[in-house]
């Protein structure tokens, strides 16, 4: 547990000093948002209906970039090997990395979500509590799988295409769940979204545990 915390703190302080990952993720999120809204070109009264799909499509593609960068950074100067010979359990490395990714994605959501509301003419304040639950569950599920597969993809050939190739099909149920839950929350509240929230909760628990158990096989040399 202390190891995980140390990894988390290390990643946060690197991020804080360079702000490289965060700023590129934020700008990319904004760009994707603009691209998607312009591509849909919806009339103002139809725009709010696009919120769930635009929000999660932006999240997915921006997140892919952000998570991959975190591991490319470790690969430079061979930091990952350094981590592995340190007396930290691989499972703790996974947890630390997972926490760092969740934090990065949360900051990204903090900026992207209000902009989605702004661009698509929807006041998100009244549904904020429910929306926060969906955002948190979506964030954790995405990070659980992305952390595991980013560690894989940076160590194989053809690594730029490998991460989306491996990750996107596995994430489709998460996408279906988050979009459906967001739609229900916007339509009336958390109670409507209970089925989708159940799917998301299962996804989060199963893959966080699977990642925690399997990470050792990925980083072992």
């Amino acid at each position: 547990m202390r190891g995980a915390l140390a990894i988390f703190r290390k990643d946060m302080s690197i991020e804080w000093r360079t702000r490289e990952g965060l700023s590129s993720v934020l700008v990319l999120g904004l760009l994707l948002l603009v691209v998607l809204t312009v591509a849909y070109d919806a009339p103002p009264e139809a725009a709010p209906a696009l919120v769930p799909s635009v929000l999660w499509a932006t999240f997915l593609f921006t997140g892919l970039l952000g998570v991959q960068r975190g591991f490319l950074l470790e690969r430079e100067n061979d930091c990952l090997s350094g981590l592995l010979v340190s007396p930290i359990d691989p499972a703790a490395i996974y947890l630390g990395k997972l926490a760092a990714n969740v934090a990065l994605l949360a900051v990204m959501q903090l900026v992207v979500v209000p902009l989605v509301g702004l661009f698509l003419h929807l006041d998100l304040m009244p549904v904020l509590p429910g929306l926060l639950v969906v955002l948190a569950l979506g964030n954790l599920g995405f990070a659980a799988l992305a952390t595991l597969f980013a560690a894989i993809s940076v160590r194989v050939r053809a690594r730029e295409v490998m991460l989306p190739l491996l990750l996107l099909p596995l994430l489709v149920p998460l996408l279906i769940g988050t979009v459906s839950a967001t739609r229900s929350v916007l339509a009336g509240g958390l109670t409507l979204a209970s089925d989708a929230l159940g799917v998301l909760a299962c996804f989060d628990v199963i893959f966080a545990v699977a990642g925690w158990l399997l990470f050792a096989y990925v980083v072992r040399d």
Partner: protein
Amino acid sequence: MRRVFPAVTCVTMLAALYLIFMVVPTEQQMGIVQRIFYFHVSSAWMAFLGFFLVAGASAVYLWNGSRGADRLAEAAAEVGVLFCSLVLVTGPIWARPIWGVWWTWDPRLTMTVILWAIYASYLMLRAFGGEDEAVQRYAAVLGIIGVLDIPIIMVSVRLLRGMHPAVIARNEGGSGLVDPWMRIALVVSAVALILVGSWLMQLRVRASRLAEEMAALRRETEARQGEVA
């Protein structure tokens, strides 16, 4: 054994074809296209079997590093994707005359496409990931994660706005198979396709064993030539 297995497979396959085209009565609502159903559903079962085999063999490989388990996982993934592709191609051919469209985002179709994509990406990882031994470990991790995804996919696709044409609902309940011969034909086709699938997997495993033997011999010759020079 090597002779017996293909022979049994051939006989079962011929029996299945005889049942499907000669014995089974033509379904009244859908007409003769309904006969696609027997191979369509059996292929889906074989594909599922292959995917679960990938996960099982991958777990064994991570557990004890057995070369055989790794070869089996790769063979099962390849054969699974082959049968999943057959499901995805025969499905629309059946859907077009019955529903009037080639494709709908019905829960079952969506699920099949996602599964196909997961295991196709598995094969891509093995093909383009590099020669490294670690790639086999990564593939095993993906094989296990993929099978864990299957139940979540099954539940999540029900959240989609389903548009079940009535035809599908009737088949799902099994009530579409009114004639006992229809059920017999389905079971025999399933056995036939599972036998074909197992035979193909066996051949695939043999091919990768040969390839490995060859790689080992190559290294040996190169080492010798190095000594001579």
